[in-house]
C-alpha cells in the first residue's frame, strides 16, 4: 500500500471517515489499528518487530523516568540501544557484514565458505528505530517525561503516514500531537490537501517519470559520458521528488487529521555548500544525527581534529543508515569529507544560508555557487545510486574522459513530456518557496487564482498518472 496508489487513498478515506465520528481516545485507538493494518499490508511478520521495539522502549523509558540512580538509568539506556540497534544489526546489516567478512577472508587467501542469510528487510525499520531511540535518549537526558499510556506510545511509533519513510519525528513534537486532543480545521484540510497534491505530482509525474531513464542508464554496461552526466542529474531529481514527495504526502495526510509533522526538505538543491545542503535535505535525519550522534561524540567542543573526526564518523554512519552496502558508506564518507573541507575553508561558523546578500552581483555569485555545488551533490548521488564499486569507477571514468569518442551521445529513453514539464514547474514552485521564504506563499493569491492553480495541478497530475508507478526509494532504508 503506497501513497501513489488508489488503494492507499481508499484506505485513508475509510480512516478519515471513522476519525470524524470518534472521540479523541477512539481516534487514537483507531489510528493505531489502522497503522498496524497499513504496516502489516507489506508483510504481517513485520508487526512482531515493531511491537517488540515499541514494548522495549515503552518499558525502558517508564522505568528510566522513575529511576534516580544515574548508573541504572545508563544501564536502561543501554538496554534500549542494544534492543533497537540489535534489531537493526540483525535485520539490516548482518547479511552484509557476513558477506563482507567472507569476501575479506577470501581476499586474504583464507578458505571461507559463503554463508547466505536470507533475512527479509522490514520496511521502514531504520525510520521507526531511530524515532523510538530518540524518545529513550530524550527521556534519559530528562528532556521529556516518559509516556505512561502504552497505546499512545505505540501510536507515536507506528503512526502510519510517517512510519515507513519518515520524517523521523521527535517525541517532543509528535507525542503531544498524539496525547492532546486535535482539531480538524478547514485550514488544516486545505493545507493538507495542497501538500498531498504537490507530493503526488512530485512522485507520480516526476520521480516515476524519470525512473525509467535512470534505471536504463544505470543498467547500461556501456553508457556514454553524457548519459552518465544526465542520468545522474535525473537521479538527483528522482530521489528528491520521490523522497520529498513522500514527505509532503505524509505531512499532508497528517495535517488533515490534525497532526503537525516536521518539515523534512527545504529546497535542498538551492544550497550553495555542504553545510547548507544538510540543513535543507532530509532535515529530520540530519538533525537526529547532529543531536544524538555528533554532539554525543563531542561535536566541535574538543578541538579541530576531533571535530573533523566527529563529522566523518557521523556522516559515515549516516551513509550506512541508508543501506547495508559499501557504496552508501562511501557516500557517507564523501559527505563527511565535503563538510570537513567546507569547514576548513569557510571557518568555524561557515557561511551557510547566505540569503542576506542583496546586491545583484552577490545574487549572481550565489546562483553560480548553487549551480556548481549541485554538480558536487550529483557526484554524491552517483556514488549512492551505483550498484558496485566497479560501476562507480567505470562511470567516473566515462564522466571525466570528455575526449572519448561518443562522449556526447545520448542513448537513454526520452522522458515523458509531462515529466519534463513537471520538472520545470517544480523548479518554479521551489523558487517561489525560496524567494518568498514561505512554504505557503500561494496563500497570498486571491481565492479564484488559488482555485485555478489547484485545478491546473490536478489536471496536470492526471497527465502524469500514465507513467508506471514505482515503490518509494526510501522504503528500502
Amino acid at each position, binding site marked *: 500500500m503506497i501513497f501513489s496508489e*488508489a488503494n492507499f487513498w481508499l484506505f485513508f478515506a475509510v480512516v478519515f471517515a471513522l476519525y470524524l465520528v470518534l472521540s479523541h481516545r477512539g481516534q487514537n485507538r483507531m489510528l493505531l489499528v489502522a497503522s498496524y493494518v497499513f504496516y502489516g499490508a507489506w508483510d504481517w511478520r513485520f508487526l512482531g518487530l515493531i511491537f517488540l521495539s515499541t514494548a522495549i522502549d515503552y518499558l525502558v523509558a517508564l522505568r528510566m523516568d522513575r529511576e534516580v540512580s544515574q548508573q541504572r538509568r545508563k544501564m536502561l539506556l543501554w538496554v534500549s540501544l542494544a534492543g533497537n540497534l540489535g534489531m537493526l544489526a540483525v535485520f539490516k546489516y548482518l547479511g552484509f557484514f557476513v558477506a563482507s567478512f567472507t569476501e575479506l577472508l577470501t581476499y586474504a587467501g583464507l578458505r571461507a565458505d559463503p554463508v547466505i542469510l536470507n533475512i527479509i528487510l522490514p520496511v521502514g525499520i531504520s525510520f521507526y528505530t531511530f524515532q523510538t531511540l530518540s524518545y529513550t535518549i530524550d527521556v534519559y537526558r530528562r528532556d521529556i517525561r516518559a509516556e505512561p499510556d502504552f497505546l499512545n506510545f505505540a501510536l507515536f511509533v507506528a503512526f502510519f503516514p510517517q512510519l515507513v519513510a519518515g520524517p523521523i519525528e521527535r517525541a517532543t513534537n509528535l507525542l503531544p500531537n498524539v496525547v492532546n486532543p486535535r482539531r480538524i480545521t478547514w485550514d488544516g484540510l486545505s493545507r493538507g490537501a495542497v501538500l498531498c497534491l504537490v507530493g503526488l505530482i512530485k512522485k507520480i509525474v516526476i520521480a516515476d517519470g524519470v525512473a525509467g531513464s535512470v534505471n*536504463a542508464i544505470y543498467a547500461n554496461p556501456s553508457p556514454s559520458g553524457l548519459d552518465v552526466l544526465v542520468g545522474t542529474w535525473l537521479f538527483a531529481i528522482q530521489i528528491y521528488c520521490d523522497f520529498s514527495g513522500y514527505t509532503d504526502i505524509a505531512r499532508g495526510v497528517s495535517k488533515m487529521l490534525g497532526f503537525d509533522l516536521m518539515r523534512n526538505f527545504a529546497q535542498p538543491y538551492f544550497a550553495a555548500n555542504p553545510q547548507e545542503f544538510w540543513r535543507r535535505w532530509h532535515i529530520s535525519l540530519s538533525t537526529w544525527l547532529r543531536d544524538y550522534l555528533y554532539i554525543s561524540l563531542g561535536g566541535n567542543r574538543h578541538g579541530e581534529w576531533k571535530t573533523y573526526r566527529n563529522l566523518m564518523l557521523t556522516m559515515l554512519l549516516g551513509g550506512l543508515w541508508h543501506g547495508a552496502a559499501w557504496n552508501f558508506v562511501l557516500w557517507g564518507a564523501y559527505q563527511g569529507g565535503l563538510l570537513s573541507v567546507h569547514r576548513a575553508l569557510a571557518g568555524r561558523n561557515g557561511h551557510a544560508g547566505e540569503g542576506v546578500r542583496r546586491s545583484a552581483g552577490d545574487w549572481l555569485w550565489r546562483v553560480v555557487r548553487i549551480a556548481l555545488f549541485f554538480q558536487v551533490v550529483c557526484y554524491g548521488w552517483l556514488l549512492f545510486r551505483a550498484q558496485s564499486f566497479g560501476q562507480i569507477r567505470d562511470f567516473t571514468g566515462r564522466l571525466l574522459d570528455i575526449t572519448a569518442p561518443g562522449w556526447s551521445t545520448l542513448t537513454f529513453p526520452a522522458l515523458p513530456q509531462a515529466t519534463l514539464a513537471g520538472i520545470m514547474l517544480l523548479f518554479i514552485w521551489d523558487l517561489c518557496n525560496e524567494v518568498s521564504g514561505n512554504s505557503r506563499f500561494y496563500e497570498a493569491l486571491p481565492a479564484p487564482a*488559488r*482555485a485555478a492553480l489547484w485545478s491546473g495541478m*490536478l*489536471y496536470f497530475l*492526471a497527465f502524469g498518472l*500514465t507513467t*508506471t508507478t514505482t515503490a518509494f526509494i526510501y522504503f528500502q532504508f
Partner: protein
Amino acid sequence: MKQYLAVPAMVLAFLALMDLAVAATLKLSGDHGALPSLQRYFDYGRSVPGKLDQWIENPDLPENLFDVAWIPDTIAQSERLFAAEDPAPGTLRGYGMSFLAQMMRAAAEQDPALRIDLHGGPAAPPNFAYALFLKDRPNRRSGDVAVLAILSSSLPGMAALSNRSWSFEQPAPTTYPVFWPDGKGGLRPVEPLVTSAAQERGLRHDPEAATAWQRQLAQEDAFYSQVSFGYSFLDQSPLLRLVRRSWAMQTIASREAGILNEEAGYPLTASLQTMVAEFARIAREDGQLPVVYLIQGRDPADADVLRMVQPVLDEQRIPYLATKDLADPRDPTNFGGDGHFKDSMNRIFAEAFRRLLPTIGWNPERTQEQDRRKAASIPEGRPLQ
C-alpha cells in the same frame, strides 16, 4: 464555512471548465485533422469498446488496428501465397511478430536467394504465434524451416484471448486461443468465440453474441477488467480518460506481474515449455526444421525468456537463436526509439540465423534432391544415377 467551501467549489468548477475546453479543442481539431498527436494522447484512455468503435467509424485513423492480423485472414493469405509459390522446399516460414519479421527480412537482404514467408501480428504472444503455426500446417513443405518467435514482453499475453485485453493503448482486436497444459504432455486450446473482423463488427448488431463474448473474455482472459472494458461514460471526459488510462495500465501491470510470478492461476512456464516442445515435435513430424527465436526486450521487468525454455530446448535438442546471446538487453543503444532492435542489430541476428541454418541440416538443394528421391521411391542413401 462558506469561505472554506468556496475554494474547493471553485476548484471543481475550474476543473469542469478546463475539461470542457480540452474536449472542445479536441473535437474542433479532430474535425479539421489538426493536433493528431494530442488526439491520440487523449484517445489512449478510451475504453477498449470505445476505441474499437472509433476504428470502425473512422477506418482512416492512424494506428487503426481493427482489421490487422486476424488468424483466418492470415491463413487465407498464406494459402494463396503457398499455392502460387515455387514448390521447392527450404522456405523459411516465420510465426511471430515485427521483431521476427525484421530479423528475417534482414537475412533475406543479406542473401537474396533465401525464401521467407512471414506470419504474425502486433506484439504477438507465443499462443498467437503457435496458433498460426498450427493453422498454417497445410502451407508448409517437408524441408522447410519453421521459426517460432517468442518475445519476452508478450509472455503475459499467453493468458489472454486477444491483444485488446492486455495491450490497453493499442488494443488490436485480433483473437487467438489460450493454451493450457492438458496433463498428458500436450496442450488444450480454449478457442475464442470471435475469430474474425466481420464477426467483431457483427457484434454491434447482435447483443446476445456480444454478451456471450464478454462473458467468455471475463471467464477465460486473465486481463479482462471493467476498468478497460466498462464505464463507457468516462470516454466523454478527456480528464477521466487520463485517469482510466492510468488505472487500466496499473491493473494490467499488476495482472502481468501475477502471471509472470505464476501466482495468477495460469501455468506460464509449463505452458510455454510444452508449446515449444509441441512446436518442435509437429515440425519434425512434418519433415521440417524447427527453430525457436527468443527475443529479449529492453524492459528489465521482462522474464528471461531463454532461461524459461532452456530446459526443453536442451532436452529436445531444439535449435534456437536468442537475441540475449548477441545483444545485451540492458544496453539501450541496441534499441530504437520504438523499442524494436536497431537495423544494425537485426543484421547481426540475421547473420547468426544464417550461420545456424546449415548446422541444423537446412540445405535447400539437398532437400530438393531428397524430395525427388521420395517422389521416385528411391531408398534413402542410394546415390542418384
